[in-house]
């Protein structure tokens, strides 16, 4: 019992009027894990979270949801040991901060002094000074403060699992960055399992132990941030998380017997060894812009893939420079270069320069849905 995962979904489905919002989703979340469900709007991530909360029930033959080892399919939210933080905060406007935080404890009929003491501790936990904030009304708080109160209100009950539905979607960038780190720290400190729904890939990468990327009601990929970013399995994942350059062609054997991708315009791209691409089949690969480099024609490093093209645009982004290159077949490739200081050490590339886009064969990500 104690060894069971915090959350288990076994082929869970949920349809609304014939439309499958969640379609046979299975995954496990370990205790204490920071688990993110990431995807564009309408991908089913919020429905998945609402299934965990108990606001929705799976379809009659829609699989099984287990929380801490117990099947909870039809259990009401108040019968589950969960906390939830909503995107719009959902603070009770008619109750003070203190009474908002104490709401869950009041439902459990705890003595007043204990409620007050625990509410204070919860407020301190989310870095709100109780003396300053306890008596305020939600309308007197900023967005970030409201979400802290909402967090305290959920955490005061010591839930085994905390569900967060895009909690930082409505707060401004600076506060968001700050709270991302705090949430991660709280997750470690409290050993509570966090299930975090977001459409912001950077947010998911920053905080998560593991990420489930959802698309069309299914899990497109599940893995650590590094696995998701560095080894996306599908074009959807590669496109949704970070930027990617895509190449498609036919897999062939080169003269040296190694696997290559023959592009439409006759260029060849060497693929990494040991990947399961069948010879003669169509294949698609993705390459991250920052894994590519530029060099002058004829100066490609030996062993690297190199495609000729012409610099179309140089974009200054501060931390990096994006160089857009038009290849011979008129497709666009983005190469990200580290900005080493444009004033002291300007880029040697200008619009119209002929260049080679070069990258190592092992940096090719072979996509499944090719």
């Amino acid at each position: 019992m104690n060894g069971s995962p915090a959350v288990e979904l076994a082929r869970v489905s949920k349809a609304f009027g014939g439309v499958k919002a969640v379609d046979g989703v299975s995954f496990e979340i370990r205790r204490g894990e920071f688990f993110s469900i990431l995807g564009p709007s309408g991908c089913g991530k919020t429905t998945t979270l609402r299934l965990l909360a108990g606001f929705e029930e799976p379809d009659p033959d829609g699989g099984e949801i287990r929380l801490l080892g117990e099947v909870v399919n039809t259990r009401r939210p108040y019968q589950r040991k969960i906390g939830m933080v909503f995107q719009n905060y959902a603070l009770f406007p008619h109750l003070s901060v203190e009474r908002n935080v104490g709401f869950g404890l009041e439902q459990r009929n705890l003595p007043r002094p204990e409620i007050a003491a625990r509410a204070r501790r919860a407020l301190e936990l989310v870095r709100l000074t109780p003396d300053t904030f306890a008596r305020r009304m939600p309308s007197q708080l900023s967005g970030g403060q409201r979400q802290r109160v909402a967090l305290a209100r959920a955490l005061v009950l010591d839930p085994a699992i905390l569900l967060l539905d895009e909690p930082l979607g409505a707060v401004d960038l600076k506060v968001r960055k700050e709270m991302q780190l705090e949430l991660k720290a709280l997750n470690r400190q409290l050993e509570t399992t966090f299930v975090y729904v977001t459409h912001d890939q950077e947010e998911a990468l920053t905080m998560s132990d593991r990420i489930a990327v959802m698309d069309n009601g299914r899990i497109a990929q599940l893995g650590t941030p590094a696995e998701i970013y560095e080894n996306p399995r599908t074009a959807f994942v590669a496109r949704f998380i970070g930027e990617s350059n895509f190449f498609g062609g036919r897999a062939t054997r080169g003269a040296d017997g190694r696997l290559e991708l023959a592009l439409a315009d006759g260029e060849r791209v060497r693929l990494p060894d040991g990947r399961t691409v069948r010879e003669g089949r169509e294949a698609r690969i993705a390459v991250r812009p920052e894994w590519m480099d530029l060099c002058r024609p004829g100066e490609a490093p030996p062993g690297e893939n190199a495609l000729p093209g012409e610099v179309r645009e140089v974009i200054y982004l501060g931390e990096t420079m994006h160089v857009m290159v038009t290849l011979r077949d008129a497709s666009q490739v983005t190469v990200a270069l580290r900005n080493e200081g444009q004033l002291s050490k300007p880029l040697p590339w200008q619009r119209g320069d002929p260049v080679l886009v070069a990258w190592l064969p092992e940096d090719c990500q072979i996509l499944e849905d090719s």
Partner: protein
Amino acid sequence: MPLARQRLLAWLRRRPEARAWSLVGPGVLFLVVFFLLPLLIMAAYSVMSRGEYGGVERGLTLESYRRFFVPIYLTILGRTFGVSLVCTAICLVLGYPVAYAIARSGRWKNPLLFLVVLPFWTSFLVRTFAMIFLLRDTGLVNTWLLRLGVIREPLTMLYTPFSVMVGLVYGYLPFMILPIYASLEKLDGSLLEAAEVLGARPAARFRQVTLPLSLPGVVAGSLLVFIPALGSFLTTDLLGGAKEMMIGNLVQNQFAAARNWPFGSAASFILMVLVLAAVLVYLRIRDRRPMAAA
């Protein structure tokens, strides 16, 4: 003409207070002429003495006010407040669940709201007469009850306090339902979900979240029922058979039958002052719960 118009607009643009008045002005003017002025005339009448054939004679006197404070009129006043309070309470008890159901009825919302306001399509007078046909000894209700064998003798319902109350509740129920519906309708569903996930069972959730947040609607609805009920005279007249007088009937009689305009005016003013006092007390009680109306 275009020039004059441009000049007027330019002038309005320069003077924001003139612009504000051009918006508020017509309404204010209307109220001054058709509400404030008559009210002042009534106030003046109430401190004059009655004319022989209606109307008033010159000269100030507080006679009409003094005359009001005798047991018979005070009984009418008490009955008026009592009946109105009971009517408001019944409307609240009947109306809240209806408003709640409509607010949660999804796509049925608009058809149901339509049904609530449907009675307004006919005049109140016609509807009150219809009530007579329902409630009299040979009316629809008695016929059905007799046919079903629930009763052997027809029940006397018409011209009793019961029929008056039925008529009042029927007439004012929509004014309770609509404001409560409005406040329940804009209640954020995620608040209810938050309460549920915090462990609140349905009853606790209603008591601690839904009800307090719908209080503004309850307050508005109660005032919209209570105040007109205080002044009602048609229902009591037609359904009560003029047996159980309310202050509205008294005022009407004084102006129409007894031709004692000063006394009718004084009775009106006494009612108005009491209504004002009652509403202020009510609002004070509400405001003591902090932010209930927020």
